């Protein structure tokens, strides 16, 4: 434990540092200092020898200087008073004849993170900006950013900013790039460095002189520039053309992004660019540097969202090899799943089937899900493969196959027959919660076509006492009730037993509540049960709710070459949302999380919601439920009466929205799943005069706004306006309690 013995070590080192014999012997002295740094790296508190280290900084030995400065940068915030002693030496070094010493001193001085250091570093930085050695200028330029950072949110020094802008013309390429970085940080409040026409053209001309880091950075800054004319735009693209073939994948991706953004009004140029980077991207995907390969694969997936056929002819490049790391294999499987077409489907499925028996259960399951994804278009072949997999009687395979079947039956009802035939027998090989739920759901919904469905469910009912997952019990309740509707004779007895168990013995509240609910429902009568359980099943004609196959390139161009494709959009949204919350500070009350048991709408908001409908002349009629068919027909026949966008950020709970809309008597006809992009919902409402309001809510991926389109069957402006104000209030309220 290095932490515990630190006092002794500090004492010993202190002694050594003060020893004049050691001080006289340069090598020994440096050795002691090295030990200090080594302990510092290991996490020992070395701040005790600060005084001695400051003394050691007065030396001609550059290595020793570097070490001492490193030490000071680490501990200066803890010993600000002692650190001031070191400033003297540093200032002296800043005017050393050796440019390296000047640069080193200036860099270290700017890195001292302690209050009150600004007044000392201002002058050296200004001198450094005009130094004749570019090495010092590089340091000084970044020093400006560091100084601004130390100040916190203080005002921007106009003279300094002007000086930095003029240094953009410096002849040293790194100074130029550092200027951009520094300005960006200093002017963060005002939206960062301004790239106008002269600056943009200057940077474009210097591009070839920069190293790869500089090129990547400048390409990123150029995203901000808006060319005035089409001619200028194409001139820029021509100038940057060679960077699409750069040796650095980072530069290639940066250039690609710039092309995509600049050419956002020219889809053919965008497609052309994506064709041209195909080679470099494929090269990165098969390169030996695995991490780069991973990043490239993430971007390939992104491109495939818009251009599904883009990599289809290269599908073999995405076959996994045995020794590749896990993360690359998973990405490759996803890619394979997306580039499937009529020509390669046979080979891709063959390959994926091979992965399903991989030793790594994770990878095998990913492959099965991928086959499930392909099954949406090539149903027959995939269902056959999946059915064969059931024959292996492997637990981890069976559970995933059944889950895949569940999703498939929902999306492609035509395969129900085949699935129902494959199901019998697989209950023996399912142990986990997810798999059981999927199987029980299938048995409940399609039980009439599976001869032994009641007996399988009976087994589950028998063992319900030893069942550990509440979710499985809930699923079992619903499934059994559904099956009871279609096959009452076989199910009545065990349904009774299950309900008895759930109400009398079950400890989980949610399960018990659902049991009670069903019991009371049954008391009302079988017709009511049918109405509740079977009617609002979302029907396949509302296929428009499923996400459209292709997304325009512009929807993700701004995310290209950032962390978004790497993490996935949803994950990134949660990360950045949390970051936003963190910035607001901890004093904000954390009411944003919807506890399942808590009130969905805080009291004061609820009042507001209920008040508002009365304030207008509008009176919406409750319980006016339209059928989906009727809604669709009416929707298609009407014109949009009103369209507007409301600000909307991040994730939310569709259920909450539905509840809130219910409060003001707006019915939800259909709604996409939570988190899907684009997210859509269709709403209907009717007022007391019989006027119908049909509404579509649309959340585009990447946009932070909700688009609302309202249609009306009678053109009456004042009721329309009051309906919209009601809708606005509800959405505004949800937005408010969400953030």
């Amino acid at each position: 434990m290095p932490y515990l013995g630190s006092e002794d070590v500090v004492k010993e080192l202190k002694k050594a540092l003060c020893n004049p014999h050691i001080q006289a012997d340069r090598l020994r002295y440096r050795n002691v200092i090295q030990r200090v740094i080594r302990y510092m790296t290991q996490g020992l508190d070395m701040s005790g020898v600060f005084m001695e280290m400051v003394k050691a900084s007065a030396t001609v030995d550059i290595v020793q200087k570097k070490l001492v400065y490193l030490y000071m940068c680490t501990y200066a915030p803890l010993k600000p008073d002692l650190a001031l002693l070191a400033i003297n030496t540093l200032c002296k070094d800043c005017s050393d004849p050796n440019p390296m010493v000047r640069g080193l001193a200036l860099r270290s001085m700017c890195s001292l993170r302690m209050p009150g250091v600004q007044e000392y570093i201002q002058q050296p930085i200004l001198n450094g900006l005009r130094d004749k050695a570019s090495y010092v200028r590089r340091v000084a330029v970044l020093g400006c950013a560091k100084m601004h950072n130390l100040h916190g949110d203080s005002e921007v020094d106009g003279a300094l900013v002007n000086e930095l802008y003029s240094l953009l013309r410096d002849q040293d390429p790194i100074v130029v790039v550092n200027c951009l970085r520094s300005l960006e940080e200093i002017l963060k409040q005002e939206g960062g460095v301004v790239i106008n026409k002269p600056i943009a053209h200057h940077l474009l001309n210097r591009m070839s002189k920069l190293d790869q880091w500089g090129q990547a950075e400048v390409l990123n800054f150029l995203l901000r520039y808006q060319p005035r004319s089409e001619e200028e735009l194409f001139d820029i693209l021509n100038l940057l053309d060679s960077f699409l073939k750069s040796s650095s994948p980072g530069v290639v991706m940066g250039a690609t992004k710039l092309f995509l953004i600049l050419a956002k009004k020219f889809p053919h140029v965008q497609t052309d660019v994506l064709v041209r980077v195909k080679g470099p991207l494929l090269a990165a995907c098969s390169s030996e540097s695995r991490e780069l390969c991973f990043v490239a694969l993430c971007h390939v997936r992104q491109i495939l969202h818009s251009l599904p056929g883009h990599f289809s002819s290269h599908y073999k490049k995405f076959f996994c090899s045995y020794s590749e790391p896990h993360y690359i294999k998973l990405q490759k499987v996803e890619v394979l799943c997306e580039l499937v077409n009529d020509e390669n489907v046979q080979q891709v499925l063959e390959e994926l089937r091979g992965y399903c028996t991989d030793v790594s259960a994770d990878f095998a399951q990913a492959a099965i899900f991928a086959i499930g994804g392909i099954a949406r278009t090539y149903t027959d072949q995939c269902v056959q493969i999946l059915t064969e997999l059931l024959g292996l009687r492997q637990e981890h395979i069976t559970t995933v196959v059944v889950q895949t079947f569940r999703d498939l039956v929902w999306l492609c009802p035509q395969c129900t027959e085949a699935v129902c035939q494959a199901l019998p027998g697989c209950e023996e090989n399912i142990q986990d919660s997810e798999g059981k739920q999927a199987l029980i759901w299938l048995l409940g919904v399609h039980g009439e076509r599976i001869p032994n469905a009641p007996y399988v469910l009976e087994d589950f009912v028998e063992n319900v006492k030893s069942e550990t997952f509440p979710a499985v019990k809930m699923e079992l309740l619903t499934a059994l009730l559904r099956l009871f509707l279609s096959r009452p004779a076989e199910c009545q007895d065990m349904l009774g037993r299950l309900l008895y168990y759930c109400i009398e013995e079950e400890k989980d509240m949610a399960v018990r509540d659902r049991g009670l609910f069903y019991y009371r429902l049954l008391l009302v009568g079988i017709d009511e049960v049918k109405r509740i359980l079977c009617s609002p099943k979302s029907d396949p004609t509302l296929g428009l709710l499923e996400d459209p196959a292709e997304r325009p390139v512009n929807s993700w161009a701004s995310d290209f070459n950032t962390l978004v494709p790497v993490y996935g959009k949803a994950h990134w949204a949660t990360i950045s949302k949390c970051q936003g919350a963190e910035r607001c500070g901890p004093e904000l009350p954390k009411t944003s999380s919807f506890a399942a048991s808590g009130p969905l709408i805080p009291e004061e908001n609820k009042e507001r919601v209920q008040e508002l409908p009365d304030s207008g002349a509008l009176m919406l009629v409750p319980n006016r439920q339209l059928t989906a068919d009727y809604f669709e027909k009416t929707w298609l026949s009407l014109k949009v009466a009103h369209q507007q966008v409301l600000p909307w950020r991040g994730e939310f709970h569709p259920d909450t929205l539905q509840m809130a809309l219910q409060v003001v008597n707006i019915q939800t006809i259909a709604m996409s799943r939570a988190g899907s992009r684009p997210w859509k919902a269709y709403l209907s409402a009717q007022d007391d005069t019989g006027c119908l309001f049909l509404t579509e809510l649309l959340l585009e991926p990447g946009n932070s706004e909700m688009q609302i389109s309202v249609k009306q069957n009678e053109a009456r402006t004042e009721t329309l306006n009051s309906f919209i104000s009601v809708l606005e209030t509800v959405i505004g309220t949800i937005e408010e309690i969400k953030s």
Partner: protein
Amino acid sequence: MIGGLFIYNHKGEVLISRVYRDDIGSRQAADSAVSSSSGPFPGERLGGSMRRNAVDAFRVNVIHARQQVRSPVTNIARTSFFHVKRSNIWLAAVTKQNVNAAMVFEFLYKMCDVMAAYFGKISEENIKNNFVLIYELLDEILDFGYPQNSETGALKTFITQQGIKSQTKEEQSQITSQVTGQIGWRREGIKYRRNELFLDVLESVNLLMSPQGQVLSAHVSGRVVMKSYLSGMPECKFGMNDKIVIEKQGKGTADETSKSGKQSIAIDDCTFHQCVRLSKFDSERSISFIPPDGEFELMRYRTTKDIILPFRVIPLVREVGRTKLEVKVVIKSNFKPSLLAQKIEVRIPTPLNTSGVQVICMKGKAKYKASENAIVWKIKRMAGMKESQISAEIELLPTNDKKKWARPPISMNFEVPFAPSGLKVRYLKVFEPKLNYSDHDVIKWVRYIGRSGIYETRC
């Protein structure tokens, strides 16, 4: 931008940590660490509570994590950790910003290259012995989290590994001229008594073959690495048997093109060191440049057509009952008989429930390694157009595990003294107009090495 850089050993101990920006590591956590001032570890509380937070988070969540690494980019407490592994050393770059992932990884690779150029292999011992140097490097390569100069040649001026003697006037002026010079990757005034250059064509050939001997995918990724010891500012021109160039020159008779067409290769894509003038390559497809001093990677390329596969693996697996497997593997070398392949290793996977193995091989040594679940067959040397065979009887324990054995592919390693892509260096001309040496005075060495990348045959 990069907030910090950490290097760990395989146990998760921190060997190097360098923090560039304060934002990494959650602030609240740091505050709470400071407020609990009676903590038992003063080092934790003071020094770098923020830094230690980030350092520890990575150790706990990635290095010590039970399952496989899920992604080379990990997000812990809204901080992104990018890691690469070299032997058993972990290098991690940390940032809070939405950065460009490819760039960060490239930077880590560059960092590894620079370190390797200074002290060879990246190992725990080397890092511990050179930690002062590494801190020096980190100081120069990154400033405030932004990459600065990273060319090994140019860095040499700033890094003073033996910096006891204070610098002479001459060296000082050199820094100024170097950093103001037009060419960032080469300093002026380099002199050698013997002008020499070494060209290495290093290729790695990758193959995935079906059991029936059908090539599922094959590609060669190659690098041309040049070591130059040339005086002054030499202008170099490099030529190879690129199909496009040869076809351009051989416009003469159709007969000639077809003849040379056999020896020329089609390069799928290639990239160059920044010193190569890309405009000239695009217009004339000629590769001309002023090389950096010392070793550098001139170009990187990839080919997928007409690859010479140095070895063919023919597997034969027969299951005899439930407790026995018979495996026969034939390897055939497919190159000129005068050439010798080296370090050949064939790895034949065996099922998990193997109880015993009997191996007979004609050449080399074969051994069953129970810990790796494989029969490893090693042959020191093998000439071209030869054939060798191994047969093994694998006895299995009867199990009630119904899981079918997945039959992982047979993989192979080797080294051959030619380029499997067929690439040939046609010339490398050196012109130095200012100094008095000509192309003929330069001693040039060319070497071809083809290694196996992922070379697998399914069985």
